[in-house]
């Protein structure tokens, strides 16, 4: 037993790959068999990650979730700033500028609103819950944009781990509501044509939320929604730790 834990600890990054892989596999199975594909496997995996971090934190009394367990220190490297930025930048490679033009002006308007409006709402909610410093308010606001923009912003401007965890949880919760709620409101918000799907993708942002929600509504709409949604994370990562942070800081004064 000690030998196994020694091997796991000595190859910590490989252990992390294996652990996250198993977690994603389990989440995929939960998504398929328990929610019938309604909730995306990736959203379940992130929720499970947060749940494990909760129990890891209770078990070790530390601040770094499961990464405080000796065998799982590799999770800290895998989910650390370096690899996270690296992987997120890589997703931009799939952005096709020709397709981006197709989304056109209305997609751009939706993207802009989809970033700023949830952000403002998140900032106000944070303020209502007693967060008065610009860094925490910005991070929670960014979490209301997507679960990627939140932690990227928080790490860039130096937010504390509990605040980053809150912003991830907010973003994941948002993605899950989008996935579950979209089919129910689709008729009401006129979600039956490619253009409204593009507006929807730009406004909602979370790719997993949008693709999951649209797939449950009308499979043919998925590519249109995903097209604008893919720009959302990049835009959020660009403006949240910069323009939006400065705006919040200017208003709160610190």
């Amino acid at each position, binding site marked *: 037993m000690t030998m196994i834990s020694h091997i796991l600890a000595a190859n910590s990054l490989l252990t992390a790959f294996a652990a996250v892989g198993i977690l994603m596999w389990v989440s995929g199975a939960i998504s398929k068999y328990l929610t019938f594909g309604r909730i995306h496997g990736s959203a379940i995996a992130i929720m499970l*990650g947060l749940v494990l971090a909760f129990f890891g934190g209770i078990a070790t009394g530390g601040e770094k979730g499961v990464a405080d367990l000796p065998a799982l220190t590799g999770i800290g490297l895998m989910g650390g700033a370096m690899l996270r930025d690296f992987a997120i930048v890589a997703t931009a490679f*799939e952005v096709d*500028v020709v397709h981006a033009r197709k989304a056109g002006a209305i997609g751009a308007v939706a993207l802009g*609103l989809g970033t700023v409006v949830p952000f403002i709402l998140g900032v106000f909610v944070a303020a209502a819950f007693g967060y008065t410093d610009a860094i925490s308010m910005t991070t929670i606001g960014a979490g209301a944009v997507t679960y990627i923009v939140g932690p990227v912003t928080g790490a860039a401007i130096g937010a504390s*781990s509990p*605040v980053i965890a809150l912003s*991830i949880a907010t973003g994941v919760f948002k993605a899950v509501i989008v996935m579950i709620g979209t089919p129910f409101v689709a008729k009401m918000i006129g979600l039956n044509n*490619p253009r409204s799907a593009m507006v929807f993708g730009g406004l909602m942002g979370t790719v997993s939320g949008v693709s999951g929600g649209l797939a449950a509504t009308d499979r043919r709409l998925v590519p249109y929604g995903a097209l604008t949604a893919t720009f959302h994370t990049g835009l959020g990562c*660009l403006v949240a730790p910069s323009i939006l942070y400065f705006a919040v800081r200017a208003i709160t004064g610190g």
Partner: protein
Amino acid sequence: MTVSGVALLSICTLLGVFLGDLLGIALGVKANVGGVGIAMMFLIAARLWLVRRGLLSHGLKTGVEFWGSFYIPIVVAMAAQQNVVAAAKGGPIVVIAGIGAVAVCFAMVALIGRLSGRVETMDEIEAREALEATVPHFKSGRIG
């Protein structure tokens, strides 16, 4: 070569983070300002340039796309190492901010849809395309 893709991605990321730090210093904040976003723009520009020159090899694409496909697992790992115990004390904030953001965005989808006028629905497009597909069939005799 696969490593050229990984190297390209690394260079773009490093440049972006560097410029983000510089921007932070220039603006007088101890933060990386938009580094990831800047790096993404470098990568998009690099891709355009490579495609135009015909230099976008399969290996290069593999090197970048592998890491792109890795971002959800990395986000899972990131979630697993947060201080959730401390965050759980702030519980309701997650629910309120999440529901609020979705509700407002749903409303705006409806609003933009109404303001921009009526467009063909997916069903109508498919009906029209099906009709168009059958028309040339009647006109042109099959050759060969």
